[in-house]
């Protein structure tokens, strides 16, 4: 079709976590500018399958920017050249005809490569289960307005809660630090009355788990905030630092 593009992909191929891995180059022809980046990969994979070769493994699920699965490090940036989008929401019109595009998995000790571009992000799940919840006795939900919440706090809590756990913050950070993710998850509770009873223990546990997973520390470069598809603010990191330091200095338990 007229207007179709040709691109050259340099893709990271790695059989499993023990394989050292390497870049392989694939020309992809007849790409519509309106295709998403993942659809372009679908074309490549169909071709590889018909040629009897191993398709490129990559994670994806919703393909509408809400699940956070589509982790790809594209031309040196998580989720590619645009800001505020995931890879599934990136379209080929953001590239030029005959571009060479480098695609790698998230690289972090805490995110081991499963295969090719797919990484294991269960470190995030373990951080969540260490404290990213509120303990309540279930039963009928109480009336929504019985716990009044100030507009500022509600807005900030909502903004923090939009984190989809994609891991772009870790991927973008030169230290592979998970501070933006963890601080978003700490903040969404710290800002709400329901989060108060467990507030102190939560921040201690989640930071301890974050450290145990082998993520780096925070140099405040702001790369995470710039690359986060949901625009999570690093003011959440400051809030978590405040909560952590304040809790350490004020816990009853010695």
């Amino acid at each position, binding site marked *: 079709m007229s207007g179709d593009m040709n691109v050259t992909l340099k893709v990271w191929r790695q059989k499993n976590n023990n394989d050292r891995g390497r870049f392989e180059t694939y020309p992809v022809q007849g790409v519509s500018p309106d295709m998403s980046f993942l659809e372009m990969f679908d074309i490549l994979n169909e071709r590889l399958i018909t040629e009897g070769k191993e398709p490129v493994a990559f994670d994806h699920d919703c393909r509408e920017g809400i699940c956070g699965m589509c982790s790809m490090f594209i031309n040196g940036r998580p989720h590619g050249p645009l800001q505020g989008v995931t890879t599934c929401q990136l379209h080929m019109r953001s590239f030029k005809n005959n571009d060479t595009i480098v695609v790698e998995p998230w690289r972090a000790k805490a995110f081991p490569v499963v295969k090719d571009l797919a990484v294991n992000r269960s470190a995030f799940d373990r951080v969540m289960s260490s404290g990213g919840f509120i303990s309540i006795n279930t039963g009928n939900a109480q009336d929504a307005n019985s716990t009044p919440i100030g507009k500022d706090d509600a807005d900030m809590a909502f903004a923090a809660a939009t984190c989809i756990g994609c891991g772009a913050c870790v991927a973008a950070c*030169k230290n592979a630090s998970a501070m933006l993710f963890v601080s978003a998850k700490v903040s969404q509770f710290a800002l709400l009355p329901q989060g108060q009873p467990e507030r102190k223990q939560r921040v201690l546990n989640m930071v301890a788990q974050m450290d145990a997973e082998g993520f780096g520390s925070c140099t405040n*470069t702001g790369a995470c905030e710039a690359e986060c598809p949901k625009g999570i603010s690093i003011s959440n990191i400051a809030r978590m630092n*405040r909560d952590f330091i304040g809790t350490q200095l004020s816990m009853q338990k010695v």
Partner: protein
Amino acid sequence: MNWFTKMFSSSIGQKLIVALTGLFLCTFLVVHAMGNLALFKSDNGMSFNLYTVFMTTNPFIKVVSYLLYASVIFHAFKGLHLIYKNRQARPVQYGMVNGKANSHWTSRSMGVLGTIMLVFIVVHMSNFWFEYKFGYIPYVQYTENISTGEVSGMPYVDEAGNPKQIKKKMEEFVIGDNKITIVKDLYAEVAEEFENPLLVGLYVFAMFAVAFHLFHGFKSGFQTLGLNHPRYNQAIQFIGTWVFAIILPALFAAMPLYFFLVK
């Protein structure tokens, strides 16, 4: 582990050490720059030499200076240690990174900038601090006419022109109309050191490192302490940029340049 060691061995706690020591060093830079403005006075170095005596004898300043030495050591060690640990958090590097798309280069170069500063601090301390404390610094004698306020300075020497020494850093007495001050002449040492173009070059270069280190470091320190608030962020950014990344390094760089070019 008790809570205290637990706190400071966590990733946030370790950064807290870097931030607290770093911001403390920032206050030192302000005092250091203000005091050294005495170098620009045209009084044969009298105010600078008297200021040096004050800074090396006042008990409060002495306590603070030991805190400073400890801070530099802790700050540099912790900062570099964190960089080493953060490398380990990404054992396999990316083939392609576009860092400038999402962050300022200063924030990604704190270790390099800090290391340049560390080299500078060692050279600087051995040039002046070590010389003053343990090396040989000649004395100068200032004669101030009490009624006119006129000051003249000359080397403190015997009749044959050989340098004389006193036991203390400074001695003051009055003879007739004149107030005599005999003091270690660090000012002359400064003037002599800054005749060396290589040293002047190193000093100016190091001040660029200070500027870029603090361009990121000042505001970063506040963020680490958890002080990020829309009402104050602009002020912190403004002070970090203008005071710590522009005015202070420019003042410091002007000192060697003044001696090299003007004196």
